[in-house]
């Protein structure tokens, strides 16, 4: 029951503002284009919001259950993070990365409409459900943005899209701040999950494969803080580490389904 018209519409929106921003990236000095990029961005987000509400109403449940639906929220929140960074830090390129990734995930959704069709088992009908998933997706979006900021600096330092007036130190400070926020949401997601599990199954922790990987992801970012604390000057190491951490995060999000342990999981969707 996915509305293909809407899917196509927001796909086009995103593509167009992606292109708009790209042209801004090529030429910083054309201010008018930047505004246009923002406008397209807002339009794309609005279209996504409409789709999410549409799913909410037609399915008569919050669209937060299937992988396809979590991807939708991710695509909505990621450009939002990019815009906040654009306004707060006067950095426009993270927005471009965010949109490219959003575009990629929307394309995946577009070709997998079946990812929206599932019935909620009784254990998922809980008040913890929405906060648990929402905080996780916010965490994923923030951590992804920070990783991209690091990766861009790691691979294309001073070559492409160079933004004057920003040195390594202030960039890594911004990255650390975003990671800290993402980590806070990650912690909340993990702990809400544990409280919910206690409510639904009687045990707050059962080492379900998804739980195990959520814990691994959490630990990986915990190590990042220690890395930043003990090796403050090793900025390139930190940026590289974040890339590896993001891979772990993606394994936790959907890679788990392809691991030999997947069959044991109650988090199958």
């Amino acid at each position, binding site marked *: 029951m996915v509305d293909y018209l809407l899917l196509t519409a927001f796909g086009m929106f995103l593509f167009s503002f992606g292109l708009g921003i790209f042209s801004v990236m090529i030429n910083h000095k054309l201010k008018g284009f930047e505004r246009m990029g923002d406008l397209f961005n807002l339009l794309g987000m609005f279209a996504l919001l409409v789709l999410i509400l549409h799913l909410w109403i037609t399915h008569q449940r919050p669209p937060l259950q299937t992988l396809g639906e979590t991807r939708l929220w991710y695509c909505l929140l990621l450009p939002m993070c990019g815009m906040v960074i654009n306004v707060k830090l006067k950095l426009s390129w993270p927005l471009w990365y965010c949109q490219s990734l959003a575009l990629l995930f929307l394309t995946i959704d577009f070709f997998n409409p079946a990812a929206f069709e599932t019935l909620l088992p009784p254990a998922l009908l809980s008040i913890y459900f929405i906060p648990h998933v929402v905080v996780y997706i916010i965490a994923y979006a923030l951590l992804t943005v920070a990783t991209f900021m690091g990766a861009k600096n790691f691979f294309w330092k001073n070559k492409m899209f160079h933004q004057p007036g920003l040195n390594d130190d202030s960039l890594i400070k911004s990255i650390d701040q975003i990671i800290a926020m993402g980590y806070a949401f990650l*912690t909340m997601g993990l702990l809400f999950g544990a409280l919910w599990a206690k409510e639904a199954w009687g045990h707050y922790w059962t080492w379900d494969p998804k739980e195990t990987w959520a814990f691994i992801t959490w630990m990986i970012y915990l190590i990042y803080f220690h890395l930043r604390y003990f090796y403050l000057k090793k900025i390139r190491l930190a940026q590289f580490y974040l890339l590896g951490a993001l891979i772990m995060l993606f394994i936790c999000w959907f890679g788990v389904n392809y691991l030999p342990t997947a069959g044991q999981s109650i988090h199958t969707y």
Partner: protein
Amino acid sequence: MNRPKFEKRNIEFMNDANGPKKELSSFWNYPFGYEQNLLILISLWFVGIQLEYLTGGLEKNILQFPDNLYFLIIWHVSLLIINFKFPQILKTFLAKEFIFTFLGGWVFLIIISGIVPQDHGQKNLLNQFGLTHIVVSWPYLFTLVLLASSLFLTIIKRFARFSLRESVFLLNHTGLWIILVVATFGSGDQVSWKMNLYEGKATWEAYDKNSKIYPLPFAIYLSDFILQEYPPELALISASGKLLSKKKTSGMKQQRISLKNYEVFFDEVINDGVFFNNEWKRGKHPGNVWHAHIQVYDKKNQQLLGSGDIATGSFLQAEQIFLLDNNDHKMIIKYLSPRPQKFTSMVKVFTPSQTELKTSIEVNKPFGFDRYQIYQHSYDQKLGKWSQLSVLELVYDPWIKIVYGGVFFLLIGALGLAFFPKKWGG
């Protein structure tokens, strides 16, 4: 920062020409670097694997009250002694080389448990070495104990110079320490029993996973077990049995559903059908099923391809499928088995002192009585909504409040980290 130290030590080690004895002593000089820590970790794992092989795992040797409490006290008193009397060992525990080695080792073990299916029941080499039950294995326990020791010593050190700025640090570390230590060493005291209730009967006992029976100080009487199910999903299946598409149904007639290139129209839908005398009838009998009469159209030209009955199956009736034959494209349209939406046990709880309590227990809505939290666990899956059996789970965990305290600390700490960022490396 660390590298020059490293190289210097290596050079000393390499150039030492005074025989193996001195080489060894210079290698084990404080403070330990990454090589020494890694060697300790790997030796511990090696010993752990041997213990695993010899003892057949930790699960049989898990500590229970009051032994676990004694262990925790002895462990932490020894740490306090180290803290005040052995500054060299303390330094080793607090060094970044130790922290990264053991954090990394710990995560490595958990990653293995995230890849190798965890099932203690297997009888193979992986199981003998503890790989199928990492989190209850000796190597894991050793790693965790050393890491938690470091965590505890770090907390003490920071507490000594307490200030408001340190509170975020302390909340995070203390929260994690509480959860790790209490959840791990309190797990032996967790009680998790099942209770089989039958409609119209009272039950006084529960059983554990080894089927050992325990009498209870109260009885539970099952008045009614109610299972609500979703309308069944509609599926399109190829001749070779491959699921091509499935869609939710509303359970109402006049609905149109598209499955790939076909459109299905529901003429008639009933949720309590019985096939009797070559006819579908309604009736409130156990074993009655979902039935629908459908028309199947080609989506492109709206041509009617056929019509017929579909029905879910039960212990009483075979399921009915619709065979679609469209220009040599043989396919099946059928209802999938209905999935449960909600299941509830309506119960009465009795105690010998004549108290009687009426309540309902369902998934996500446990009921607290005596020292137990009582959960709706399962039912007779074969009978589905006609199940006379309801299985409840009784859980008791004396340490839970302390773990929740740790959770609370960690939550506040995480928020503090996000909203009061302090200078890194401070």
